[in-house]
């Protein structure tokens, strides 16, 4: 089935999320929708899926104009969506999940699961999904759960399949497998829309590429274009995708984790015998698929995790058992994984957020009173130094874009006397321009001679930024390898097979 979007415009108040966007997707082709966060990709797909109504423009399937009041109508017309966050019920089996919403019944309203099972088996064999219809979804690996989502779309006879940032949660291997599946679906005659901001994936599977920027189509690109060309179209200016860093000048071994175990509040062990060493002037990247103990490890370093054994020491001083404040005072700079949750007070102004860790210290406080003048001067200085784009230092954190929020966090953490920098997924959700900036800041922190620990879930970031890479799997460090280790090897380590 051929999908055509013609002049779609969608406004939210004064903001134009989609501005006369036109797009044609032919059956048997993978059409990539490439753009940065906030470029309007998701809005466009929500219009297509009937979640939003377009202010102008029309949706055509096989040249017939369609009107979707909701996802139900879009699905009935043959549009299937594989969401970034799975819409599955974990305690149901695969078969029960895929029939949800259009349950086949036998005489007397009895659920006909057998039909569903057969259908799952048939689709599974046809596309090589390798899925047991009776498996409980919650017990399946993430990559397999995603295939259940795909089956769910196929079983309702979708001819147009939309994949919304499908690789965010996958290991490199699972990503490769998904690419294969997408190609098979294309060859079977489906029209596929693939939404992403990852250039490598685009170049691998796309037949055609449409680039969105600030809600507008800026043009089509070819899969043969270089990553730099694609990125420039996305951002609207020339970009340098390589991380420019010189060789590491190693100092003494400053940060040492030895035989660390940790348990969560429920008493389940989350870290197993973790041992790591970081030298001054070195970046150690902790790589791994999200949820393999990286978050807990950074929490232990920060002092936010109570049940631990083993040792964590910085400059020969033990950190375990110390309070967060004591550890920060020893020189830890901490960039949390979720900046809006743990890094910023959204309702506070930029100026207030910049002193969150030192509100009761000189020069920001004199006695029991905060010195507004000093705080404001400090904020003005950091606004300039870190190129934070905001109306003023009195803008609240929630008014800022993700990139600028992260700059505020970095400005605060890097303006103390640091002895160690720990940053969790420091570029998550940031645009290309901000990523460059954040990487430069991290590298200059390294070059100033402090040990740096970065948690990365994307292999590209891990290999480009790291001097060495430690891979974590299920709470253990699988191995520590040089940064030029191949993707294949790293991927196997991340999947726990090596």
């Amino acid at each position, binding site marked *: 089935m051929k999908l055509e979007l013609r002049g779609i415009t969608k406004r939210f108040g004064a903001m134009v999320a989609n501005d006369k966007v036109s797009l044609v997707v032919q059956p048997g082709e993978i059409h990539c929708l490439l753009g940065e966060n906030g470029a309007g990709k998701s809005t466009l797909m929500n219009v297509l899926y009937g979640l939003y109504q377009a202010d102008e423009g029309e949706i055509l399937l096989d040249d017939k104009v369609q009107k979707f009041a909701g996802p139900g109508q879009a699905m009935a017309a043959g549009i299937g969506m594989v969401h970034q966050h799975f819409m599955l019920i974990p305690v149901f089996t695969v078969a029960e999940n895929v029939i949800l919403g259009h349950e086949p019944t036998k005489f007397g309203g009895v659920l006909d699961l057998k039909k569903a099972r057969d259908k799952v088996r048939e689709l599974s064999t046809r596309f090589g999904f390798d899925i047991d219809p009776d498996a409980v979804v919650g017990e399946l690996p993430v990559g397999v759960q995603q295939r259940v989502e795909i089956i769910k779309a196929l079983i309702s006879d979708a001819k147009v399949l939309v994949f919304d940032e499908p690789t965010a949660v996958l290991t490199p291997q699972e990503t490769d497998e998904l690419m294969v599946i997408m190609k098979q679906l294309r060859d079977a005659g489906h029209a596929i829309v693939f939404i992403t901001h990852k250039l490598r994936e685009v170049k691998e599977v796309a037949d055609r590429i449409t680039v969105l920027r600030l809600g507008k189509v800026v043009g089509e690109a070819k899969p043969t274009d270089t990553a730099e060309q694609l990125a420039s179209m996305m951002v609207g200016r020339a970009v340098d995708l390589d991380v420019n860093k010189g060789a590491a000048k190693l100092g003494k071994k400053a940060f040492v984790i030895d035989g660390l175990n940790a348990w969560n509040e429920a008493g389940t062990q989350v870290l197993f015998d973790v041992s790591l060493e970081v030298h001054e002037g070195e970046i150690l990247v902790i790589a791994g698929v999200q949820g393999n103990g990286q978050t807990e490890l950074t929490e232990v370093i*920060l002092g*936010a995790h109570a049940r631990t054994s083993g040792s964590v020491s910085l400059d020969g001083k033990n950190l375990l058992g110390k*309070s*967060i*404040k004591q550890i*920060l*005072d020893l020189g830890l700079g*901490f960039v*949390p994984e979720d900046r809006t*949750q*743990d*890094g*910023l*007070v*959204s*309702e*506070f102004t930029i100026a*207030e957020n910049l002193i*969150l*860790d030192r*509100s*009761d210290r000189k020069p920001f*406080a004199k006695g*029991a*009173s*905060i010195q*507004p003048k000093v705080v404001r001067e400090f904020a003005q200085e950091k606004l300039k130094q870190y190129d934070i784009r905001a109306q003023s230092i009195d803008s*609240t954190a*929630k*008014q800022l874009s993700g990139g600028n929020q992260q700059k505020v966090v970095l400005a605060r953490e890097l303006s103390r006397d640091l002895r160690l920098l720990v940053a969790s997924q420091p570029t998550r959700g940031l645009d290309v321009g901000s990523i460059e900036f954040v990487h430069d800041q991290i590298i200059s922190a390294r070059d100033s001679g402090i040990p740096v620990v970065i948690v990365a879930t994307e292999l590209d970031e891990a290999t480009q930024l790291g001097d060495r890479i430690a891979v974590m799997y299920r709470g253990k460090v699988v191995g520590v390898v040089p940064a030029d280790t191949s993707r294949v090897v790293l991927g196997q380590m991340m999947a726990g097979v090596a």
Partner: protein
Amino acid sequence: MKKNRIVREILNTSASTTFFAVLASFIVGGVLIAIANQDVQAAIGYFFNKPGDTFAALWNAVSGAYAAMFRGAIYNYNAHDFANGISPITDTLAFATPITLAGLGLAVAFRSGLFNIGANGQIIFGAMLSGWVAIYVHAPIYVLFPLAVLAGLIGGAIWGGLVGLLKATTGANEVIVTIMFNYIAVYLLGYLLKTPVLKAPESINPVSLPVQNDAKFPLLFGSDYRLHAGFFVMLAAVAFVWWLLNRSTIGYQFRALGHNPDAAKVAGINIGMTYILVMAISGALSGLAGASQILGTERVLTTGVAASYGIDAITVALLGRSKPLGVLAAGILFGALRAGAVTMQANQNVPSEIVLVVQSLIVLFIAAPPLVRAMFRLPKAVKA
């Protein structure tokens, strides 16, 4: 912290919504006054013969009631002379003193993300400790008076701080704990007033001895007026809370905790200590309200020493959006309602309970901004 989202939303209410919520409450109050009025009921009986009578009766009932309220709360234009004429406004300010003090206490807690609804217990504890000092400690006035006020402050701080301690050490929910602490305080006071600890020796009723003259808040305009020096303590508390929340380092940490406890924790702020400090300061301000009651107005401990101020304080803190000047304005409004209700009942036969209905409606309307916006066709609040 999601559970306190509604409180945070209320605190973010725009000034115009607050104004219209108050206005709407008075309108609904007017409707209730009108339908309960005898003349209106009589006139409605022959509405189709002479509709004018009904409208005249409606107008008389509502305007009469609210005019009486004005005379009782602001200025009595029917009085013989100016001195009697201004008596109502001093009554209003006297009522406003404990309400505002307790409201400020709750405002500190609300801004810190803690839904302290234990002002009642904290007022009672302040009043008990303050009253005990004022009755039984014998000392020169320059020791006794400050000591009695301080005792109120400390009593409230202990009763509030304990809640903070429980929350910090056991994770207990402060809403449940403060409700229970209110009961404990109420019945502990009742118990002690029946034992020699507080009961006047020759009395058969649960009443204490009167406080010593030296421990009283001096009356500001002589014995014909209720307004006492506690009013200035309240004004000082307004200034203190402004400084605390807007300029002090601990106030900054309080607000950080209130908006995002996770970020506050990661930034090295000691969450447990901050809970205790918030609740102690919050309780101390309510304790001062208790001291103002016992040393300024009641002058003798009874089970009714806290009146309904602990509940009014919640409304006042929400209505004032937990900002010091807002709480002061709301406190004065509630003082006026309380003072006016008496005159309204005496002059117009409108039961004073209607004032409680109006007070409750104010909270209801503030808690439902879309309703108020729809009623007055206000534009939807733009999200920052």
